[in-house]
């Protein structure tokens, strides 16, 4: 079985959830150390961690295929993710929406609208360039690319916003991702769901 992998995670962080889901549904022996990220501390190397785990442990190959062209498709998405999906979803993360409401100061509407517009463009590209008519972003099987994207797009939910609401193609993809990983998805999102529920209770 080998030594336990020790992971330091904050489940409010999208990349942390992607790592948590992979560990849980592939049953890689691990121990989670919960951390609370400082303001402005950004995790950006989750794809390196995911690729390391899929290579080191005996997990189904579809997560990070060995065949060069299929692997290149995953590398292509994970690279694009950093400068597209991630920054767009980051702008709608709960602190920017929730904290102003909690503190009584107004949400910066102009900034929020710009963020929504950027996210809209990114989702258009996600559908037309990656998903197209495939079940998953990089082909017929789920990969680490789908985990990164799905966790990212769940983030605005903490602020009460479902960004896939009017996008049936991406909604269906998200449902397929959740079905493929099973309970691990909700387990990883438990903190985010709690944040969403607390917000609803206050309204």
């Amino acid at each position: 079985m080998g030594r336990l992998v020790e992971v330091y995670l904050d489940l409010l962080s999208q990349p942390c959830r992607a790592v948590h889901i992979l560990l849980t549904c592939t049953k890689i022996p691990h121990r989670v150390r919960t951390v609370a990220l400082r303001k402005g501390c950004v995790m950006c190397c989750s794809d390196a961690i995911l690729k390391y785990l899929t290579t080191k442990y005996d997990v189904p190959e579809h997560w990070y295929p060995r065949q060069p062209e299929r692997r290149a498709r995953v590398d292509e998405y994970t690279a694009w993710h950093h400068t597209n999906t991630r920054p767009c979803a980051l702008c709608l993360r709960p602190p920017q929406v929730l904290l102003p409401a909690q503190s009584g100061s107004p949400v910066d509407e102009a900034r929020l609208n710009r963020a929504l517009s950027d996210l809209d463009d990114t989702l258009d590209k996600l559908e037309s360039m990656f998903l197209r008519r495939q079940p998953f972003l990089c082909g017929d099987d789920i990969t680490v690319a789908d985990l990164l994207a799905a966790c990212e797009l769940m983030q605005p939910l903490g602020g009460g916003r479902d960004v896939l609401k009017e996008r049936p193609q991406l909604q269906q993809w998200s449902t397929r991702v959740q079905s493929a990983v099973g309970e691990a998805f909700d387990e990883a999102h438990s903190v985010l769901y709690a944040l969403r529920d607390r917000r609803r209770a206050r309204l």
Partner: protein
Amino acid sequence: MALELYLDLFSQPCRSVYIFAKKNNISFDFKKLSLLDGQQYGEDFGKISLIRKVPALRDGDFCLAESVAIMLYLAEKFKTPDFWYPADLRQRARVNEYLSWQHTAIRMHGSKIFWLRVRSPSLICVGAVRLVMSYRHHVLAVLEYPFLSAWRDRVQEAVGKELFDEAHQYILGAQESVKSMDSSKMQVYKPKILRLFM
């Protein structure tokens, strides 16, 4: 059909791919693209890259975007020397860690500094001037890191000065090139540049 690389050497990721392919003697058709002329929006290029960004690769009927993905694909396909992308799991993970981090760290700041240095006043509206000015101190500070400077010299030596200079000839002449450029072409980039700083 020969491997094709669609590159504009004004672009940092394109230069990385260019140097990597040349240094490893990978034979390719160099398909030059001019971003400033908007060639990435042409119909033909759209068939290669839906993302319409450079660098892009076409290998037979396989097309690929994103410089990191392209270099890893080339490393695997052409079995480049191990040090480029080590087979050892932990060493490889360290490379992946850096490749992941650089997207939102070095790369973003490099782009901002490029636009500042090129100094295209026609692109900067009055409202953005104060934001542009706030980056000037960063432009000066980046030149004062002796360890990074020494590292850059080592990279230059490892790839060979000739190849390094060949890849950078356009960018090093950028400030002069921009002066003679048709400013109407640059207007297309105004919204993107303003977004970088706002």
